[in-house]
């Protein structure tokens, strides 16, 4: 039990340290805490590798993502094709590398859309309160009442498939989460002294929200966003699975998995590797998200 005690004492000490830190201080502190968290660092390394792969795909991928070779299809992993070839004889390893671009793009942009619009709505609702708050939050309730994947499916059905629409659909589905989180933290900040002070010196609402409130409610958003990227990648893969995803021959992992499932019994490697790629990515994002949460919220540090 001594272990737990020291941890919580340490945590309390950190909370105490946290407050008087200067402007850049808290982030350095977060980083220091992150570094101690092995799991979070593993997550960071995974995501780092992924980003690297995405940026340098055209250099490190041994083949193009659309180099068909019909006579050489269905190869199991071998020295020329590390992860084998698919039903068109395309190199699966290369496609997974190129696919990291798509998945990261879908993940980040969808989350960007969600965080930006959800955050704005939440901030407005929380800051102004009253009727506006009520209207916005009821809208969010409605959005929340429609399950995310169904919403995404309806949106893609309406807009048509394709990378851009998938990102929009997945993004809209994730709006309620951000709206709620931002609203909650804005509510807790709204009546604090430094906001009152800013109002007193005549700062306008926009400035107060962007300069004071948002920076101070970043922590929960960052955590939510890290996990949100994971959800977005999964959601996009799910959309591809029901045939409403990204256009071929784009090597989106979910689409690779979905088309590979027809061959899953004879050539399981075609569907297995994209599945593993998704899993590792989500795994890394979750590790990172957990680590960030612990680092940002010392009470929860475990």
């Amino acid at each position, binding site marked *: 039990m001594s272990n*737990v005690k020291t941890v919580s004492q340490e945590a309390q000490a950190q909370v105490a340290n946290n407050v008087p830190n200067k402007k850049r201080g808290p982030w350095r502190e977060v980083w220091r805490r992150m570094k101690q968290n092995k799991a979070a660092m593993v997550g960071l390394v995974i995501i780092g590798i992924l980003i690297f792969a995405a940026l340098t795909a055209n250099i490190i991928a041994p083949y193009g993502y659309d180099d068909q070779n019909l006579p050489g299809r269905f190869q199991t992993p071998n020295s020329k094709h590390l992860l084998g070839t698919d039903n068109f004889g395309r190199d699966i390893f290369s496609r997974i590398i190129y696919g990291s671009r798509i998945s990261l793009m879908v993940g980040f942009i969808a989350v960007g859309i969600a965080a930006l619009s959800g955050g704005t709505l939440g901030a407005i609702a929380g800051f102004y309160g009253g009727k506006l708050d009520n209207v916005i939050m009821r809208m969010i309730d*409605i959005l929340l*009442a429609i*399950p995310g994947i169904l919403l995404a499916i309806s949106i893609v059905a309406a807009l048509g498939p394709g990378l851009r629409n998938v990102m929009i659909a997945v993004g809209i589905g994730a709006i309620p989460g951000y709206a709620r989180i931002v609203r909650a933290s804005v509510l807790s900040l709204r009546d604090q002294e430094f906001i009152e002070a800013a109002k007193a010196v005549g700062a306008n609402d926009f400035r107060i929200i962007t300069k004071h409130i948002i920076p101070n409610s970043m922590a929960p958003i960052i955590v939510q966003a890290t996990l949100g990227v994971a959800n977005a990648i999964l959601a996009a893969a*799910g959309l591809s*699975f029901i045939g409403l995803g990204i256009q071929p021959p784009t090597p989106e992992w979910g689409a690779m998995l979905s088309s590979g499932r027809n061959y899953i019994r004879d050539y399981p490697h075609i569907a297995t590797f994209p599945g593993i790629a998704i899993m590792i990515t989500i795994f890394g994002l*979750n590790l990172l998200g957990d680590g960030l949460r612990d680092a940002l919220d010392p009470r929860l540090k475990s």
Partner: protein
Amino acid sequence: MHKYIIRRLLLLIPVMLGVTFIIFTMMYFTPGDPARIMLGESAPESEVIKLREDLGLNDPYLVQFGRYIKNAVVHQDIGRSYTTRRPVVDEIMARFPATLKLAAMGAFVAVALGIPTGIISATKQYSLFDNIAMVLALIGVSMPNFWQGLMMMLVFSVYLGWFPASGFTSPKHWVLPALTIGTSSAAIITRMTRSSMLEVIRQDYIRTARAKGQVESVVINQHALKNALIPVITVIGLQFGFLLGGAVLTETIFAIPGVGRLMIESIFRRDFPIVQGAVLFIAVSFSIVNLFVDILYAFVDPRIKSQYK
């Protein structure tokens, strides 16, 4: 308390209206003509026009929406399926048992796996068990459901032959789908239970209880668990609500005739009345589950009860 419940139920009305409006609008502006889809690629244009007329699809948007709302409110009639001509309510009720069963089984798997694992992990923090459990939980969250379902079907029905591959007629059929949708929820619940327990364990009253010399199991079971369960119940409620509507992929893979699949197929067929009805139904079930969870809080933690006025 009952006032609170009534207020919450009244709040459902604007949510239902809003959901109806959004889905109606979205479906209306989605390209794809229901009549054309129903009649197929070979039907002459004259028949398509006639069918559109019969279905009232040529009326302007507001007329259609008004008619829908009016029928729903005045006659409690939310229409018939374009495709099967069966009343929407019948179609959904025919599918609901499977969905409910699947969600309940999934939630059962999730709770049965998640809560004990979470508690052990928390009490034995940083132990081998904890580490393995946490890695497994993370893998559980990271695995795409549809992939997991396929892999399980491959192993358990094809290679081992333990369970049937599809359908939903007997308990034997329930196992694989329930495990498929249950494991990711289990992973979430494990993590939630663990962190919630950890937080509670450090609270003063637990220290006090320990200081009083109470047996550790009593401390955990009597004091810690009860308080730690509140956030866990929220998650379970959310997950259950999610399973009610979000099991589309699992339903597809295992050929389960549930509401989720009905809804997807209807979107593809542009069977608007069904889509409307199904979304509304899912939204209402989701809200009611949430309300139920909130009420449950009051029983777990009497302090919360006072807030429900």
